């Protein structure tokens, strides 16, 4: 491509959340001079999702990912309220309700939606992924009473924490035997659960499969009665619009290690299932940091007309009841847990003496150190224990 500028080329990005917006702005940062079209089915300016479960007080405002004026300055053709409905690879066209949109390169960034329950929700219940969902939850918090949270994952516990801090009564219901089943080792999950109980949250774990019913005023879930129920039981990739396009769709858009789904077609963020070069296997992450890094990677590939494999160690953070929880890598079969007197926790997960992940509470710099150690491959337990001293030396060893 001439001087890597690609000034006669058109990149169409579908989905204007963190991955899509980041791809658009990174294209410009990497020197791409061609046309950039950014579509989203949602109306309004792009906002960030993580705040939706953390800030639900009546005065909370949504931070935008980017101002529309910045998009204009960067010559990004942002088209809100335009849903992609199909893809024709042969002609290089995205079909939308507003007509076909031709592309030279396509970036699929349509993310996820909440996994629905098998039955429709009663009036006083909702999921949490969009601005409208968030407004509905905020209204419920403003009215007060009891919030029932279905699903004790990150999102559900964050909302529970925020609601109890704002004076609501809160019950969390999950079929799992403990909180944070995905991605957090048992010892840390137990500490987080205890923190919630101390704050007044009622935990009902090992519940029956949740069935919600209710009327205009109240909602009932497995015997718990509340004024509003928030359902957060996972997410599904938004890939139905790609059916029949010829792309491989299996729990996301299947991509090679370079995040390419077909020549000139890329997928980034929560909807991308790619061969993660760090682990050499197909993975789909649902993490903010991965979404941004995917997008940056693909923008660079397009702007420089070159490809390279994307390696990513999963990283999540969660803010609950004043605690900063961070997890890098994956949970293993063994666990080493260290705690200090002042509420700092460090858990090292390992399988066969190789460290697969590290989880921290209120120890951001330790998490950075662990994240560095895990970048290239799984280090040994000794290496990590050594590198994370003084924490591993001075803290009490719990298990």
């Amino acid at each position: 491509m001439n001087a890597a500028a690609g000034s006669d080329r058109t990149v169409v990005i579908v989905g204007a959340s963190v991955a899509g917006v980041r791809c658009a702005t990174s294209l410009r940062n990497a020197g791409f001079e061609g046309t950039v079209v950014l579509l989203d089915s949602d109306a309004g300016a792009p906002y960030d999702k993580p705040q939706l479960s953390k800030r639900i007080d009546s005065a909370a405002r949504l931070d935008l990912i980017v101002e529309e004026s910045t998009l204009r300055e960067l010559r990004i053709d942002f088209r809100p309220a335009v849903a992609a409905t199909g893809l024709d690879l042969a002609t290089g066209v995205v079909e939308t309700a507003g007509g076909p949109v031709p592309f030279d390169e396509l970036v699929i960034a349509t993310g996820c939606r909440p996994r629905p329950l098998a039955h429709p929700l009663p009036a006083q219940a909702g999921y949490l992924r969009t601005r409208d969902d968030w407004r509905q939850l905020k209204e419920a918090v403003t009215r007060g009473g009891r919030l029932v949270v279905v699903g004790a994952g990150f999102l559900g516990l964050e909302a529970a924490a925020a609601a109890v801090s704002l004076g609501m009564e809160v019950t969390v219901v999950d079929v799992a035997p403990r909180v944070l089943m995905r991605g957090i080792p048992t010892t840390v999950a137990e500490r987080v659960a205890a923190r919630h109980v101390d704050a007044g949250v009622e935990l009902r774990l090992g519940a029956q499969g949740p069935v919600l019913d209710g009327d205009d005023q109240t909602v009932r879930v497995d015997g718990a009665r509340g004024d509003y129920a928030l359902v957060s039981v996972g997410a599904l990739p938004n890939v139905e619009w790609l059916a029949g396009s010829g792309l491989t769709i299996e729990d996301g858009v299947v991509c090679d290690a370079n995040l390419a789904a077909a020549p000139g077609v890329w997928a980034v963020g929560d909807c991308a299932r790619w061969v993660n070069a760090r682990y050499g296997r197909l993975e789909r992450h649902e993490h903010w940091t991965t979404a941004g890094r995917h997008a940056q990677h693909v923008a660079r590939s397009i702007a420089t007309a070159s490809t390279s494999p994307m390696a990513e160690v999963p990283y999540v953070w969660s803010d609950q009841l004043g605690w900063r929880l961070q997890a890098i890598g994956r949970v293993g079969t063994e666990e080493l847990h260290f705690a200090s007197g002042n509420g700092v926790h460090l858990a090292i997960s390992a399988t066969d003496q190789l460290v697969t992940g590290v989880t921290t509470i209120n120890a951001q710099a330790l998490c950075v150190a662990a994240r560095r150690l895990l970048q290239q491959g799984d280090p040994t337990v000794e290496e990590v224990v050594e590198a994370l001293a003084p924490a591993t030396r001075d803290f009490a060893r719990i298990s």
Partner: protein
Amino acid sequence: MTDPITVSSPSEVLELDLDKCNGYGNCVFAAPEMFELDLASNVPILLKAEWSDGEREALAAAVADCPAGALRLRKRDALG
């Protein structure tokens, strides 16, 4: 409110707002030459007082990678 910590190139200023920073550390991975997380305070230390054109893309990535919106890159004005 603490004043942001700033460093600059000839044309731009990088601001770090410590009131917003949560110590997530993404900046350290996006631009390792620019940031390190301080072990005692859990907030980043700016390792350099300025940056070159070649380092700018990594810096822009660090700004975008910050989940807390604590980093800002702005054009240098007459006062900056």
